[in-house]
């Protein structure tokens, strides 16, 4: 027969209070090594007390208290390994490129969708010039009609809604939304990839009709290769999420989603510093006549080659180099 609850609480409470105090110190990061051993002992005792309370005093406040106390101690003791700077270095040196190579199918599909969009947009505008009214934003059309690049004004002070910050906002939003819309069974990502492609294709075709393709190339040459690559990678991450929802494989849908979501976000997080870097190039190098076109094109080509060289070569293992399909199976 169990002893009455108040007597039980009075007898055991000292240990629980001690455990609570130790947990508070653990959270503050001032725990010493011998205290850690005490914490472990006290946690095991509290676990035993919880089991006791579950049997003899279910539904009481003492039971709830022990449940919560053990929950906090459990979270403090069984922590996942903490990510520190070496982990960040390892992530960029090995894990991010390796993840990208492993999921190259999704990135490829995303690139294909994007190219499809470009071709569609370009064909429509070349075929039927009035299609441009539908596909190209009116502001851009206005500039093109005057025979000027809409990007010429970026460095001037005239419009407060500056294109540069607009583009930076746009890049960031588009990258995040492209990834997150994978939750709509990949449909949102699919739409965004094609839609972005159509826009770029249509604008290029419009510029080509007006004989301004040189100006357009001048603007996008420096940052275009890397920026569009990042967009495609984010699209690939979104497609991964969508695929996990549609075809979770042998796992329940919720588990598959969590598992694939973790992989997919690596692609997005890995792109973040490159997105910031290319934002600088886009804001500083691309607009204006500060640099001649061939410098911009050379820079863009070099950055793109470096980016993809890094993605395809960094942290390559021998098994991957030999072309073993081991990664795909996992």
């Amino acid at each position, binding site marked *: 027969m169990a002893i009455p609850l*108040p007597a039980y609480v009075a007898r055991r409470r000292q240990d629980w209070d001690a455990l609570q105090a130790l947990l508070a110190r653990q959270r503050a990061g001032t725990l010493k090594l011998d205290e850690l051993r005490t914490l472990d002992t006290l946690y095991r005792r509290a676990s035993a007390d919880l089991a006791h309370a579950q049997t003899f005093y279910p539904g009481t406040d003492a039971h709830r208290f022990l449940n919560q106390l053990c929950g906090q101690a459990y979270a403090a003791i069984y922590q996942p*390994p903490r990510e520190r700077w070496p982990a960040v270095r390892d992530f960029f040196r090995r894990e991010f490129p390796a993840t990208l190579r492993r999921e190259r199918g999704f990135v490829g599909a995303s690139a294909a969708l994007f190219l499809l969009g470009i071709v569609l947009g370009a064909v429509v505008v070349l075929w039927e010039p009035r299609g441009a009214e539908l596909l190209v934003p009116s502001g851009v059309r206005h500039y093109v009609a005057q025979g000027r690049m809409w990007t010429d004004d970026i460095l001037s002070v005239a419009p407060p809604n500056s294109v540069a910050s607009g583009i930076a906002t746009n890049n960031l939003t588009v990258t995040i939304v492209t990834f997150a819309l994978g939750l709509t069974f990949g449909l949102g990502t699919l739409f965004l990839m094609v839609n972005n492609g159509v826009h770029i294709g249509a604008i290029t075709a419009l510029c080509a009709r007006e004989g301004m393709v040189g100006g357009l190339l001048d603007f996008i040459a420096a940052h275009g290769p890397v920026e569009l690559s990042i967009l495609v990678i984010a699209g690939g991450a979104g497609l991964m999420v969508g695929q996990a929802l549609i075809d979770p494989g042998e796992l329940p849908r919720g588990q598959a989603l*969590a598992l694939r979501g973790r992989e997919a976000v690596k692609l997005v997080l890995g792109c973040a510093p490159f997105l910031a870097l290319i934002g600088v190039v886009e804001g500083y190098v691309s607009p204006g006549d500060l640099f001649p076109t061939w410098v911009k094109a050379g820079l863009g080509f070099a950055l793109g080659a470096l980016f993809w060289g890094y993605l395809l070569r960094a942290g390559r293992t021998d098994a991957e180099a030999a072309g073993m399909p081991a990664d795909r199976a996992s």
Partner: protein
Amino acid sequence: MRTAPTPHLDVATPERVALTLPVAGIGYRCLAWLVDASLLFFFWLVAYFVFTLLVSDVLGVLQGLSGVAQTLMVVGFFATQWLYWTVSEVLFHGQTVGKRALGIRVVRLDGAPVSVYESAVRNLCRAVDFLPMLYATACVSMLLTRQHRRLGDLLAGTLLVREERIDLDKYTAAPEATAPVPSAAGARPLTPEDVELVLSFLSRAPGLAPDVRRRLGARLVERVGPPDAESLAAVLASAESTEAFLRARVQGAR
């Protein structure tokens, strides 16, 4: 009487004890978000006012910035919004300021604290959860899932658990040294439900109206009280004697 079962997260620990963590519902989450959002709002408000105090021509300065500065500013603005959630969740054991104020925290499905990846995923998904406005998508998702998870939580494999403040003092509060109370020899042993009931009455008693206090005390004495009539009359003489008896009764075995 039991209320409808609240959603919870079951965790099996290596110590072979099952933990049952209560899940935070939509109300807690909205309130926590309101706290965080107003905090961010006031931060930017103060930053703006400080800026306007230092610089008279705000629009001119913003336009005078070069492209790179404007770009960095916009990127920095977005980063702070996203970093605020992720950094506080990773560094402060799954709690932002608002979550701490409401006593809820983000955990993984196995009850462990969130790591960088999970926190990054669930906060990147705010962009979609917010659509079309004011977290409408997230609210629908929280209503439809059993453990009140929004889309970002589903993708990251996380959820929010609630922490309650439970006071153990009521179990160990010392009885006031008054006149000796009649012993309850021969009465049945109390069940944990009786103890819980009496203790919750004792902790609430000082705030009750006098006649309610006496009536409830009398009913509890009836339930757990002494079997013989004259000690029953002594116990029921005043509210103080009733409560002293009840306290001695539940703590009797010490």
